[in-house]
């Protein structure tokens, strides 16, 4: 039952991935812009159980690894996203005050996005990647957090509605 619901969410992720790759990537946005797919995944994970968070991270990480703009080896984003998905869902698991509060969700996702990207950078360095300008990285991480604060409130109504339709109402029935 759980696996079936998880699989149902796959087309949603595929659509968001397609939007990220074909629409969001068309715009050169201030400070390097934002990754809609990363924000969506972390927000989705924050609403679920740690088990679901890890599985969501796994699926989303695989898709991010398949992107041609990914510089690291296949599996690098998968690894990071499993841990990120698990961690963000673990933080709020069982605490309805946390999940019911939109501000908490905005803050936690805005913190999680730069941390996830930073973790990707560090793991990339371990695999022999290049660091580049430290200042540029700082600007990029900082602006991604700010963009996340702007984007999450717009995404939240859709994400929470779809998530509750898939995982909460059905489980009651």
């Amino acid at each position, binding site marked *: 039952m759980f696996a079936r619901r998880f699989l149902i969410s796959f087309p949603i992720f595929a659509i968001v991935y397609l939007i990220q790759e074909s629409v969001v990537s068309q715009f050169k946005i201030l400070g390097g812009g934002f990754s809609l797919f990363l924000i969506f995944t972390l927000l989705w994970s924050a609403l679920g159980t740690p088990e679901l968070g890890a599985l969501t991270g796994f699926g989303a990480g695989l898709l991010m690894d398949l992107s041609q703009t990914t510089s690291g080896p296949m599996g690098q984003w998968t690894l990071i996203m499993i841990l990120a998905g698990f961690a963000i869902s673990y933080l709020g*698991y069982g605490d309805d005050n946390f999940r019911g509060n939109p501000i908490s969700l905005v803050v936690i996702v805005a913190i999680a996005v730069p941390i996830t990207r930073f973790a990707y950078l560090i793991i990339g360095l371990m695999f022999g990647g290049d660091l580049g300008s430290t200042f540029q990285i700082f600007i990029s991480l900082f602006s991604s957090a700010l963009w996340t604060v702007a984007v999450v409130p717009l995404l939240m109504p859709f994400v929470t509605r779809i998530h509750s339709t898939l995982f909460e109402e059905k489980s009651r029935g």
Partner: protein
Amino acid sequence: MRNGGGNRSRLLLISLIVTSLFLITLDLRGVQVIDGLRSGTQTAVSPFQSLGAKVFRPVGNFFSDVTRLGRTRGEIEQLKAENEKLRQDLINRKNADAELSELKSVLDLAGTARYKVVSAKVISLGSTSSFTQTISIDAGTDDGVKENMTVITGLGLVGVVKKSYANSALVQLASDSAFRVGTRVAGSQQIGILSGQGTSKGVLQLLDNQTTLKVGDVILARGSQDDRPFVPGVPIGEVTSVDNAAGAVTQTADVKLFVNFSTLSVVAVVVGSPKSDPRDALVPKGPIPIPVPTVTVYATPSGSPKP
């Protein structure tokens, strides 16, 4: 687990982590299936990217005007819609003119050096989640674009083709922090290596410390064996500052790259080059000094005043 996640969750987490590590190992060992997966995904996504580029590029410049629509009525509405359409056409025309101008300049550059090029439109501006600086173009192996080919614009070096798919290709920009290119200084022919920094500037490291470098020197690509990844003679940038630290083993300098990577729309991939090196033929010409007119005043003494 904090709230009764239990062994099942731990087992799942460990299984997923092991799977991802397995994938990384497979990729680092160069297993073909992984590359096939990425190529397959890109082949599936590239039509959407082309469509997205066609639809959203003009719209991106048009947001402020679109918000005015929807509040008009009757004839005014019709006139406004007509006006809007004309403006849209104008924007599209301006867009096409800009692309044409870029294409013309890149063909001029390619013509001067007698490069054989394949022109391509930029369909995606790279990743916003990782730290790489890349673009996707709408030409691929079907058009003769292969990996490790030089990509240029009318201003100079854009980057190098890292991956080539059937109808698209991924280009690593010269501004990418992992980008390295062998260079020479126009005129003095000193050689060095330029590294991308993730910004519009690169760092040049000369291989010989006995020679001197000065602000304004133009840096060109030195060229690679069999012209891949770099054909010789392509302009890269201009020296903006020189680090003359005493006792340094090699001399370094900051180089402002000629190409503006945030406004790329049309590029050309060099698929063939002449046997002869164009040397300094592609060095951009400096501004022509405008002559300042001088005025000469002749003073003529007037006649002596009458008493």
